[in-house]
């Protein structure tokens, strides 16, 4: 078997793809990220933190979460803490509209692997996801 940065693990007859969960309350954002990532990854969706935690329980093979930092009711950083508590091995990329150093610092401190600012483009998302998953595979 040979790993490659596209997320598709070759050599397996079922062409196992890495699992990415998109957690955002906005349908437009979920569809946009799906458009970018669905060719290479298996995508799951959650529109709030509770749904995300339920999804992770049912899909423990999930490798990466793209988590919106601003969701209704639950603070994004609090959501990050809860996710890392239940699944410490999972990688989380924070997606946010705030380009502030304080938010980035807090996110990294709470275990996020990286930080993406909206509006993002296709290449930015693909690069961030690929690099994060590669780092995870190598550890």
């Amino acid at each position, binding site marked *: 078997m040979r790993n490659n940065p596209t997320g598709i693990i070759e050599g397996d007859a079922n062409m196992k793809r890495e699992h990415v969960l998109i957690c955002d309350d*906005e*349908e437009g954002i979920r569809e946009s990220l799906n458009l970018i990532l669905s060719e290479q990854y298996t995508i799951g969706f959650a529109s709030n933190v509770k749904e995300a935690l339920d999804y992770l329980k049912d899909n423990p093979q999930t490798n990466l979460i793209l988590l919106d930092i601003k969701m209704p009711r639950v603070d994004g950083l609090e959501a990050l803490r809860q996710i890392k508590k239940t699944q410490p091995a999972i990688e989380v990329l924070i997606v946010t509209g*705030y380009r502030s150093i304080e938010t980035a610092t807090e996110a990294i401190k709470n275990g996020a692997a990286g930080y993406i600012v*909206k*509006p993002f483009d296709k290449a930015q998302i693909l690069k961030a996801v690929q690099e994060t998953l590669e780092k995870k595979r190598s550890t």
Partner: protein
Amino acid sequence: MNLYPTTAILTSIIAFAMALLVYLKRPKSTINKAAGLFCFSVGWFSLFLTFLYLSRNKQQAIVYAKLLNAGGFFVPSTFLHFSLAFAGEHIKKRNLILSGYLLSFIFLSSLPTPLVIEGASEKLFGFYYPDAGLFYIFFVLMFFLFCGYSEYAIFKEHKKCKDHLKRNQFKYVLTATGIGFLCAATYIPLVLNMPIPPIGGHFIFACLCLIAYSIARHKLLDITIVIRKTLIYSTLIALITTIYMIGVLLTEKYFQTLFGYESLMITIVIASTIALFFIPIKNKVQHFVDKAFFKGTQEQIARENERLRQEIRRNEKLKAVATLAAGMAHEIKNPLTSIKTFTEYLPERYKDPAFREKFSKIVGNEVDRIDKIVHQLLDFAKPAPLELTEVNIHQILDETLELLSNNLVKKKIKLIREYHRSNPIIKADSNQLKQVFLNIFLNSLDYNVSGLLK
């Protein structure tokens, strides 16, 4: 009873009281320390001047003459210190201040000798008065140079100052100390054996009273006095009592000269008449001082306060609009992100009917969202009539709090939401309610010390 010792003791009491008050209120402030020293010097001078006037023999008079000048020698240097500190130049002109104090100490050290103050003799309506020594003229020179320069320093700062309150304070100090300086200068001629009585001495205490009044009423020297009313009352009563006593004495003397007749009853009638005109005169003086130095009567000040309150309200609204704009700018990023991504894929996917359907739905919705957000901002900024509709207050709170999420992260404030109301539907104008909540939250973020917003 003669006026000279009376006004001298009054000046001494008021000066010592001011020295204590000014220093104790802010002992670490340079201005307060310098003002305290200046008042103490004036108090010391006036106290021993009183004793000099009441001296029974030459030996006693000489001792008091030297003692009063021990304080008098420090009046110009402490006044310079205070003026430069008040003008904010005490650090720049530190050497000048130190030179002043050095000169004062040199004059002080000469007191055991006849070089500056030779002694005392009867020269003022039978009262003893100091005699100048050979080098007294140098003290006179120091007095005029230092006091003149001090007035100039305050005048210069007054001209430069743009702050309305500070300008008035400068104007007030300039006037009061200018008059005090001229009054104090009248002590000098008789020391040099010029036949000019020190009539200015009767008015120095009035200048001190006016400065005390300004300290109490208009926060001169940044003193906020809890017993402000009592101090104003006491200061004015002291001033008025003296005027009253002067009036009674002069009128009594006039009637005695006219009728050759002394009567206690006449004195009481005169005193009562003067007392009747007391309060109206006091009110007129207060009105004049406020208008001349603080640009307005009570009504004008009240109008100015109202104008300032409106300006504060306007600034709060602008601050809220700025926060709302920042929050909404962030809100717009989400739909823009979706539109951007879908248009990026349009060239390669436009033949895919499923993609086209999704494109149409998502992009259309997101454009509508942007439109709504922009309208919300416009509605917030312009004054609108109240539109009462049924709104969900929990939802309004959530939407308002979302605008502040970045502020919360930046200030490391944890948000706790506890909504107890079982039925959150109320009748209100949602935009105006949002504006109110936003102002409340912004103010609480500004003054938050606990790190919690509940």
